[in-house]
């Protein structure tokens, strides 16, 4: 059931699937209303009118966007435009920042995640996160992956746990590399392996959505390519929201792309369309390298 506010919001004409007239009419850079395909048919997550403040400073203004099942949504934009901030709203990681305040509504399969009745722990188990810098726990590879299932009680016994660990590592494409060193510390792996370990750790709790904040920015091109392949495979089972600095990466891995600018969500659309035919002047400027 939608509450009143959301109902009104959804009726607002400009933000629906209206196909705007294609080029050459560009929307001017003073206009910060989101253009493009904000909603999807069957969203797993919906966000409406999200504002984020750090103390009095507003970092995100009035962002509304849906996330579909089994899609990779990439978020691009110049640094400091609020991509990470928005991403961290989706699993309430912003709760850990004392000054951060979030308003608006964010729903996961129809449940408001900021509702008092939502347990943030359950939420984060369903909306996992992979960070910019690989951050494996200073424990063994096995313990890293087993940690989530342990705290969430996903395994009835040791053999089930072993199975989860193995499947997760396989899905993350890491099994063959680490199957003989499960007891060695996860911090001893290479950077790319560490990041895949973090992904394995994340999928071990079988989330619905995986958030990735520039997961490849600390990696070399070969490791990056492996992660990109992995993201594509993971789409079979999960919805993925990825923040990236690299437009090529966004183009390679994502189905939809959202462009942020100074706290505003400027444009959303199918990746191929955004990259070939952006509607908004700001998007075009960014894509053509005029700033960023």
């Amino acid at each position, binding site marked *: 059931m939608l509450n009143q506010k959301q109902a009104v919001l959804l009726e607002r004409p400009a933000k629906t699937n209206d196909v705007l007239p294609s080029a050459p009419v560009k929307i001017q850079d003073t206009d910060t209303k989101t253009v493009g395909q904000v909603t999807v048919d069957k969203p797993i997550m919906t966000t409406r009118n999200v504002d984020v403040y750090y103390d009095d400073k507003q970092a995100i203004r009035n962002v509304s966007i849906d996330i579909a099942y089994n899609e990779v949504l990439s978020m691009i934009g110049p640094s400091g435009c609020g991509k990470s901030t928005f991403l961290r709203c989706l699993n309430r990681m912003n709760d850990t920042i004392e000054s951060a305040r979030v308003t608006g509504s964010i729903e996961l399969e129809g449940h408001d995640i900021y509702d008092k009745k939502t*347990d943030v*722990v*359950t939420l984060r188990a369903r909306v996992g996160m992979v960070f910019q810098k690989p951050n494996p726990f200073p424990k063994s590879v096995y313990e890293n992956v087993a940690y989530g299932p342990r*705290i*969430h*009680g*996903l395994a*009835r016994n040791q053999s089930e746990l072993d199975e989860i660990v193995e499947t997760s590592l396989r899905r993350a494409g890491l099994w063959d590399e680490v199957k003989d060193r499960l007891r060695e510390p996860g911090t001893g792996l290479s950077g790319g392996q560490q990041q895949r370990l973090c992904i394995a750790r994340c999928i071990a709790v079988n989330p619905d959505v995986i958030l990735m904040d520039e997961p490849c920015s600390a990696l070399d091109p070969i490791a990056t390519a492996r992660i990109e392949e992995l993201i594509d495979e993971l789409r079979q089972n999960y919805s993925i929201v990825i923040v990236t600095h690299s437009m090529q990466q966004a183009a390679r891995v994502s189905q939809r792309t959202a462009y942020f600018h100074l706290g505003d969500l400027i444009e959303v659309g199918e990746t191929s369309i955004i990259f070939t035919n952006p509607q908004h002047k700001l998007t075009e400027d960014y894509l053509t390298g005029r700033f960023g």
Partner: protein
Amino acid sequence: MSTPLLIAVLLLLAAAAFEFGRRRALQVAGPEFRTLHSLPRYYGSYTALWCALPALILLGAWLAFEDKIITILVIADLPAAYQSLSEPELNLIVNDLRNQLSGNVVSRELNLDMQAAVKHYGSLRATSKAALAVIFLSVAMLGMGLAWRKIAPDFWARNRVEAIVKVLLIICSTLAIFTTIGIVLSVLFESIRFFRAVPVFDFLFGLEWSPQTAIREDQVGSSGAFGAVPLFAGTLLISLIAMLVAAPVGLTSAIYLSEYSHPRFRAAAKPLLEILAGIPTVVYGFFAALTVAPLIRDAGTNFGLDVSSESALAAGLVMGIMIIPFVSSISDDVINAVPQSLRDGSLALGSTQSEMIRKVVLPAALPGIVGGLLLAISRAIGETMIVVMAAGLAANLTVNPLEAVTTVTVQIVTLLVGDQEFDSPKTLAAFALGLMLFLVTLALNVIALYVVRKYREQYE
């Protein structure tokens, strides 16, 4: 049952409660255990906490008030003749009763009334013990039962447990505040009693200190002299000597070690100097009395000076040695906080190393150094063992470092070691001195910590 036994039983109960809670959770979840909100062990912990915590709180409260209440009851039941006795006399009687009860030596023969009272006391104690055991265990079972009934798949056990743990953490963190309050109240309370007997003005500005006469009642009209000025003067004199040693030595050695010395020399000398900070003050006191004081006296005799064997100089020197590492480590921190850019700027103008330090680094670091020195002074004023062992008891009002002086801390120790009579100004005076000591060091600390913090923030 004795208290340790009760606690042991409670621990067993809590362990059982944990298991019951866990089983219950698995049972209500049915075959599909993932419908549980939290892991089964959190349901167990929740039950165990509810079993143990209320019972422990009850136990603490009971033990805290049991004795007071029983005493009141016993006194109320004494024959009327005793009721009119003064409080100290009653206390003596109660003490005798207690001693008799626990089989200790009693200061007087007990008459019949008293023997009855002892019996009464004993039976009250026994009743209290039995009642405690019953109530304690009932509370534990009750808590466990209540928690057990709450267990359901959508019961957020983990959040509850974590909330309880958080409350415990909060209580631990507020202990510092309670300690401060405890200090203030305990010295303030007795000080007020002291100031009822001795006017504040006489205490703060009186020039004569001889508390020992206060208990000699045959000296008519002599209620002892509680003028604390000689103590303040003695404390300041010794602290001054200590700072005259520690401030220059500590500061210059910090500068030398951080700016000049060979890294290998520093690696050896710095930890060695820090050893000085780890030596207990009683060792310094012994060192002062055994070695330094005779050295100074002999040296003085060679120069034809009459040096007291408990001279302020000996105590001050040794205290200064003790404070050297304190000053030098604070100076080291403070000097290192001065940004490299300032040094580079000065050196680039062609100043020598020492010019750079004196003209740029030290002025920039001055607030921090001053803060550190204030902390060091606060230490010197509050230092006890060195002065107790090396300075005297004679309350001389002098600035001659070769004479014996006494300090606030020495007097507190002297007044409180041995017999304490909490109704005589002699004992209470120690608390008044303690109050002064606390207030002065508090002021110094607060100012110093503020100055140092501001200084640090400036360069952060």
